[in-house]
């Protein structure tokens, strides 16, 4: 049973527009959420995170929004650039010391010229 779900396997966005990647989770004990970016033939790279005590975290072109009541988070990239084409993994973690990160299946983002 998937605890972290990314329901869109892929997404295409025009360069310069906003990319919105969505993620849903089922475990209300998760209290820390992360986004990783992965290029082909490379390992995932940490992108941005958010604690459950916040509903928004911004870092340059990347903003993550958290809606705890809906158990939903989203990653906004604006403006989208060609180098943003990659697979984006949503991940979640519980609040205990030895809680592991649970990953979603990923969404492949294509930025169109």
């Amino acid at each position, binding site marked *: 049973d998937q605890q972290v779900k990314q329901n869109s396997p892929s997404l295409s966005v025009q360069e310069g527009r906003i990319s919105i990647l969505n993620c849903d989770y089922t475990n209300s004990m998760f209290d820390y959420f992360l986004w990783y970016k992965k290029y082909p033939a490379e*390992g995932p790279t940490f992108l941005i995170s958010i604690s459950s005590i916040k509903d928004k975290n911004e870092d340059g072109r990347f903003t993550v929004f958290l809606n705890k009541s809906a158990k939903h988070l989203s990653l906004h990239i604006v403006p989208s650039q060609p180098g943003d084409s990659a697979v984006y*993994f949503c991940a979640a973690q519980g609040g205990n010391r030895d*809680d*592991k990160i649970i*990953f979603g299946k*990923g969404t492949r983002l294509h930025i169109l010229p």
Partner: protein
Amino acid sequence: DAMVIQNPRYQVTQFGKPVTLSCSQTLNHNVMYWYQQKSSQAPKLLFHYYDKDFNNEADTPDNFQSRRPNTSFCFLDIRSPGLGDAAMYLCATSFSYTDTQYFGPGTRLTVL
């Protein structure tokens, strides 16, 4: 630069022939993880170490073993690879379980 290194990047083995994948880190992190990732799936945690304290995920097959001889190195041994073990194997490290994980580039394993 501090980093997580995996060797080899590509490994081909025969059905049933043991194979070892290696991971090293210069981050001096306490925790090291091994993940298996198959195409279009989420990375699946196989094992993790906090220093020398080994933790095996409940659904990791017995065919998979791991060793961490020191802080910097961690190995994944697949004793008798099957066709279903063909995947990308990712090593990651973190200072503690609640800190950000840093991933290596992965080793893509092909089983013939």
